[in-house]
C-alpha cells in the first residue's frame, strides 16, 4: 500500500535545490524544534523520543530513546553522529548529509540537550567530499546564527560541534570502531563488555552514537510529538523510513515510505518508486536490508517493510537498502562480490572473520570461474558455520563485532535458493551467465 503519509526527513530536499542552506532551512521551519526543545526540560525531550519509539536507522534498529536512557551519570558526556554510511547499496545518509545537513545538525543539537552532552562529533564518511563541505558550511552558518556554541538562543545551554572526516573503512560504521577511529586510531571494534558506549565510549566517557537518519527525525518528533510519530507505521516499526532501492529496477533511488504499510513489491513496482523491472525481465531475488542480510525470493515480495515481519522470515531491514536482482543475475557472482567486500573490509582482529572471509572469497571465486568442486558447497557452509555457528537468524557470533556474522548470509542464501546454479557452474566448468 502506498500511504499518503507526508515525508519527514526528505520533505525539504525533494522540493528545493538549495535545501542545504541556512536560508532555505529557516524558510521551511528550520530550528523551530531546537527553540521548542530548549524551552522544555531535557528529560521531557527524551520522553517524546521514547514515546515515538524511533528505532535507530543505522542497521541494528536499536530504539533511540532506550540508548539515551542507558547513559551512566558523568560530568562529561558525548554525542557522536554516525555518518560513515558504507553498507553496500545503502545511499540514504549520503543524500541526507549532502542535501539537508541543517536537519542533521538540529537533531543532533536537540539530542545533545536531551542527554546533556557538551560536545558533538559528526563523523562523515571520508569519501563524501561534497557532504563534508556541506556539513561544515551548515555548521559555520549555524554558529553565526547562534544555534550552536555558547548560550544557544539565550537558553543558557552551550554545545560545541565538530565535523570529523573518516578515511575509508567500512568497519568504522560499527559504533565502537567509529569511536576508535575518532580517537585517531585504527578502526578496531572494541572488545565487549562493556557492551555499550553509553557506559564507556569516546575517551572512556559515556557516549551516545546515533545514525544521521535517526538524528534527522528528531526535529519533527519534537515539533509534532512522539505520539504523532508513533501513529505512523505499525508495531515496533514506527514513523517513516528512507529506503535505498538499487539494482535491476527502472528507477533506482531513495524513497521515504511509511513503515510497515508499504511492501517490497510497492517499493519495487509503484510508479512513484522503482517503476518495476526492465522490460521482459522477472524478479529472481532481492536483498531486503543491505549486504549483511539474508536474501528473499519473489514469493516474499509482498511482505511489508516492517522490522518485525522481515525478522519473522529470518532476515532484516538492516540499513534500509533493497537490492533487486532480475533473471539475468548470476547468483554465484553476486554472492561472490559481496563476500569479497567483507574479506577486504574485515579489520583482522578475529580469526574466524579474517581467515574465514578470505577462504570463502577464494572458494566462491573458483566456483564462479568454473574451477569449483561439488564438495565446495559443503565446505562453504562449514566455513560459514565456523564464523556464525548453526547459521541461524538472528546470527550467532564468534567475533568481536557483527562484521563476521554478516559474511555467511549472502553465501548460504545463494546456496539454499540456487543450489542448481552452483552445480551448473561446477559441472560445466564455466559461468552460465558469462
Amino acid at each position, binding site marked *: 500500500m502506498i500511504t499518503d503519509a507526508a515525508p519527514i526527513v526528505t520533505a525539504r530536499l525533494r522540493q528545493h535545490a538549495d535545501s542545504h542552506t541556512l536560508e532555505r532551512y529557516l524558510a521551511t521551519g528550520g530550528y523551530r524544534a531546537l527553540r521548542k526543545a530548549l524551552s522544555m526540560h531535557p528529560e521531557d525531550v527524551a520522553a517524546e523520543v521514547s514515546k515515538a519509539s524511533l528505532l535507530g536507522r543505522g542497521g541494528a534498529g536499536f530504539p533511540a530513546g532506550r540508548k539515551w536512557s542507558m547513559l551512566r551519570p558523568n560530568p562529561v558526556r558525548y554525542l557522536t553522529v554516525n555518518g560513515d554510511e*558504507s553498507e553496500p*547499496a545503502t545511499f540514504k545518509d549520503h543524500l541526507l548529509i549532502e542535501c539537508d545537513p541543517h536537519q542533521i545538525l538540529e537533531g543532533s543539537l536537540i539530542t545533545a540537550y536531551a542527554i546533556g552532552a557538551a560536545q558533538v562529533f559528526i563523523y562523515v564518511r571520508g569519501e*563524501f567530499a561534497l557532504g563534508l563541505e556541506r556539513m561544515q558550511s551548515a555548521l559555520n552558518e549555524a554558529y553565526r546564527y*547562534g544555534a550552536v556554541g555558547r548560550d544557544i538562543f539565550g537558553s543558557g545551554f552551550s554545545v560545541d560541534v565538530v565535523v570529523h572526516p573518516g578515511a575509508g573503512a567500512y568497519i568504522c560504521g560499527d559504533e565502537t570502531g567509529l569511536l576508535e577511529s575518532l580517537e585517531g586510531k585504527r*578502526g578496531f571494534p572494541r572488545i565487549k563488555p562493556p557492551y555499550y558506549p553509553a557506559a564507556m565510549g569516546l575517551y572512556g566517557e559515556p557516549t551516545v552514537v546515533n545514525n544521521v537518519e535517526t538524528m534527522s527525525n528528531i526535529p519533527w518528533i519534537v515539533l509534532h510529538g512522539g505520539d504523532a510519530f508513533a501513529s505512523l507505521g505499525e508495531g515496533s516499526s514506527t514513523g517513516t523510513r528512507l529506503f535505498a532501492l538499487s539494482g535491476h529496477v527502472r528507477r533506482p533511488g531513495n524513497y521515504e515510505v511509511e513503515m510497515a504499510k508499504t511492501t517490497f513489491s510497492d517499493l519495487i513496482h509503484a510508479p512513484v518508486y522503482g517503476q518495476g523491472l526492465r522490460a521482459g525481465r522477472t524478479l529472481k531475488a532481492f536483498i531486503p536490508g543491505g549486504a549483511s542480510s539474508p536474501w528473499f525470493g519473489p514469493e516474499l515480495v509482498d511482505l511489508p517493510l516492517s522490522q518485525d515481519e522481515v525478522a519473522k522470515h529470518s532476515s532484516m531491514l538492516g540499513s534500509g537498502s533493497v537490492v533487486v536482482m532480475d533473471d539475468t543475475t548470476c547468483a554465484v557472482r553476486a554472492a561472490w562480490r559481496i563476500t569479497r*567486500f567483507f574479506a577486504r573490509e574485515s579489520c583482522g582482529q578475529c580469526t574466524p572473520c579474517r581467515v574465514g572471509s578470505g577462504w570463502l572469497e577464494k572458494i566462491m571465486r573458483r566456483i564462479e570461474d568454473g574451477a569449483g568442486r561439488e564438495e565446495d558447497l559443503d565446505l562453504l557452509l562449514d566455513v560459514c558455520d565456523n564464523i556464525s555457528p548453526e547459521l541461524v537468524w538472528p546470527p550467532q557470533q564468534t567475533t568481536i563485532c557483527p562484521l563476521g556474522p554478516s559474511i555467511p548470509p549472502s553465501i548460504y542464501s545463494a546456496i539454499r535458493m540456487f543450489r542448481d546454479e552452483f552445480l551448473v557452474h561446477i559441472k560445466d566448468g564455466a559461468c552460465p551467465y558469462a
Partner: protein
Amino acid sequence: MTGPADTAGPEARPAGGLSPEALAQARELVALYPEPRSALVPLCHLVQAEHGWLTPQAMVEVADLIGVTPAEVLGTASFYDMLHTEPVGKYVIGVCTNIACLLNGGIELLEHAEERLGTRAGATTADNLFTLEEVECIALCDKAPCLTVNWRFFGPLTHDGFDALVEDLAAGRLEGEVPRHGILNRVRREGGLRVAREEVLAERAASDQALEQRKAAREAVEKREQAQQGQGGKQGGKGSA
C-alpha cells in the same frame, strides 16, 4: 622530494612537509578535540591535499603535532583505504564494482578503464596523471555504474562516457569540478564556541606551548638515542643483533 601530484612550484612548500597555511589549519584542527590524537586522520587529509600521499616527512610533522610517533601515524593511516602511503597520480579514479554496480556493469566498466588507461587497478599511468583503483560501494547506487575522481562522483557511466571523462580531465577541462587531492580543501571551520577572543588566544598559546614541549621532548629522546647509539657502537653494538 615532492609527489607527482604537485602542480605548484617546488618553492611553494618545504620538501615533503606541510606548507605554512596547512600547518595553521592543522593547528586549528588539533585544537578542536579533547585529545590531540583525534586529529590524526584529518591531518592526513591535509597532507594529501599538499602531496597527494603521505610523505615520510609529513608523517613526522603530523606526529609532532599530535604527540605520537611517526610509526603510529603510519600504522594508523595504513588502515584506511583513502590514505595513500605511496605516490599517486594527479587524479585518483575509483571505479565501484560492489553489488549495485556489479548488477549494472561495474566490473565491465573497470575492465574498460584498465584498457583505456593502459594500467591495472592499483597502479598509476606512466604520465602520473591517473591512478586507477577498484573501490567498494561509494553510496551512489542509484547512478550505477559509478566512479569517483578525487572523491567527486560521476555516474551512471557508459564506456564512451568514461573515455570522454578521461579526455576532459587530461585536457584540464574539469579543474573546477574536480579539485586537487585532499577532501578538506574546501572545508574550513569558521565558527567555534562563542568565547571571548582573549580566551581563544590563550587556548591557542597553550596549545602552541604544548606543541613545543612535545617537540622538545621528542628531540631530547632522539638525542639520547643517538648518544646511546654512539656509545653502543663503541661498546661493540649491544643489542644490535
